[in-house]
């Protein structure tokens, strides 16, 4: 459908175009800078595939963790009332605005060998220093707020009317959660999970600070790109393009899910 009159001033379109260009141009620059002749060879080297696989694997694990922890957290924030709730919400969203390096330092002093929980973990026989677990922790730390934020929004928009009806039909809280609430905000959870995955995939600062960098163990794609930059700029660019491609797919997926959600009555 074409609207006859948009009511948007023309100068605004011009500024908008500048804004869009600002975002799109750097991506185009990467595409232009790629050595296409060596592209296949660059992104299929041992270190590159190891980094890509590790990134996908850790991001997927982090996303599962985000869903397991974030869904209950979002419900608690959106559907219950307790003392200190507003403060908790602010704290939960803090990793969104913190520089990732700060997150890495915070994790170091929590789960690190000399951190808050490090000693207890060591007694339990768990040493997460320089392990893939540390990468997953760093990614989950930075990605969890995305899931909580988007799901809490979905929950508030959805309201509790269906839950009330379900209760008067004899459904206990757990039944209401599983058979009514979760299916209703399902698209919100999936969209939040996709965003979390994307954030986990791009995680760099916290991983570098907290988990270290070793091929196949802790060196995810962003860390590999950072390292390749030192010696082989072409490889760094090629891998950057791979990361951009994965991100584009993820964002498109999230967009589709949200559009599908909006089409529901």
């Amino acid at each position, binding site marked *: 459908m074409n609207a006859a009159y948009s009511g948007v001033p023309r100068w605004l379109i011009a500024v908008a175009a500048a804004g869009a260009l600002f975002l799109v141009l750097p991506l185009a620059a990467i595409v232009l800078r790629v050595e296409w002749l060596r592209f296949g060879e660059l992104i299929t080297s041992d270190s590159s595939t190891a980094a890509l696989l590790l990134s996908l694997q850790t991001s997927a694990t982090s996303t599962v963790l985000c869903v397991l922890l974030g869904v209950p957290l979002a419900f608690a924030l959106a559907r219950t009332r307790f003392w200190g709730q507003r403060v908790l919400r602010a704290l939960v969203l803090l990793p969104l605005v913190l520089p990732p390096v700060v997150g890495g330092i915070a994790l170091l002093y929590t789960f690190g060998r000399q951190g808050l929980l490090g000693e207890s973990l060591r007694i339990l026989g768990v040493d997460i220093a320089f392990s893939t677990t540390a990468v997953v922790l760093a990614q989950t730390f930075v990605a969890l707020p995305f899931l909580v934020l988007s799901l809490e929004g979905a929950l508030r928009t959805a309201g509790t*009317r269906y839950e009330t*009806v379900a*209760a*008067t039909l*004899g459904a*206990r809280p757990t039944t209401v959660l599983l058979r009514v609430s979760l299916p209703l905000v399902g698209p919100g959870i999936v969209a939040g999970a996709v965003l979390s995955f994307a954030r986990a995939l791009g995680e760099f600062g916290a991983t570098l600070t907290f988990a270290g960098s070793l091929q196949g163990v802790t060196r995810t794609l962003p860390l590999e790109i950072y390292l390749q930059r030192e010696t082989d700029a072409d490889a760094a660019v090629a891998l950057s393009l791979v990361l951009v491609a994965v991100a584009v797919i993820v964002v498109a997926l999230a967009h589709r899910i949200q559009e599908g959600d909006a089409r529901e009555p």
Partner: protein
Amino acid sequence: MPVSLECSARIDARNVDVRLSVATGETVAVMGPNGAGKSTLLGVLAGLVRPDHGSAVLDGKTLYDGGASLPPYARGVGLLAQEALLFPHLSVLENVAFGPRCAGVPRKLARARAHRWLGEVDAASLADRRPASLSGGQAQRVAVARALATEPSLLLLDEPLAALDISVAPMLRRTLRRVLDGRSAIIVTHDMVDALLLADRVIVIDGGRIVEDGPTRSVLERPRSSFAASLAGVNLITGTTVPDGVLTPTGLHLAAMMDEELPLGEEAAAIFSPRAVAVHRARPTGSPRNVLAVTITDLEQHGARTTVRAGHLSAEITTASAAELDVEPGVEAFFSVKSAEVSVYLR
């Protein structure tokens, strides 16, 4: 008749304090102005609002008593709201089978029961549809089946027809009349037709208090509250009995034909029809009429006749004379009514 529900509730935050009972198989209509506390009452009974004080017993089961309160899912109280609120991710049949499934009924049996209830509300053909594809009337029909499929001890209906088209409401009303027959139910409504057709008894709540409680017909014929009077389409003035009529707290004396010997100084209601009221711009003199100085608040024209409102009083005159009088909201005027048109009864 045995009592099904016996309840009292005080909710301080909303200034509601009521006490009522519902006999087994009886349908009670709850009416009253907006914000009177009708929906709060339903919320208390359904377990969604916690009263500050009071108790409720439904078929021998204590719903709440002081601090103790049964959760909504354990009360056996069904709730049907203005909107159908069918679960969008379930089919119509799954929606209706939801309640029985929660009660532990095996899947097959629950679906059979759902089919039966869909049949009861003439919606058997909708079983496999998705809620999004239903019309408002169809959805509400399914919602009725869903609420009944749990076989509640008490069914609460919160303006179940208010959101429907005028064209489909009568059909659903007939369905409700059929399924509510012999069922303990409380229906909140703004529509007198609902009260007349669906309810055995009417309770009028105003300002958080029950101001009227009686068989539907007698409440409408002899209203004791201004709300019931406006429902019945009559003017009502309350006061105390004096030898030839009623004296209001503000000192207005309303002369009436006292058709029976009433004790003096008792609280009484005087009612008269809007059709018996004449409207004047200047105070009428020399006639044996009651004259009330009023300020016009509203005009409502229906064809040849026009209703002139002044607060809770109204006069119905011809549209021609309304035009001649040149009345409009804000204008000072006088309503007069012959004493022979005013009837008085004790409240």
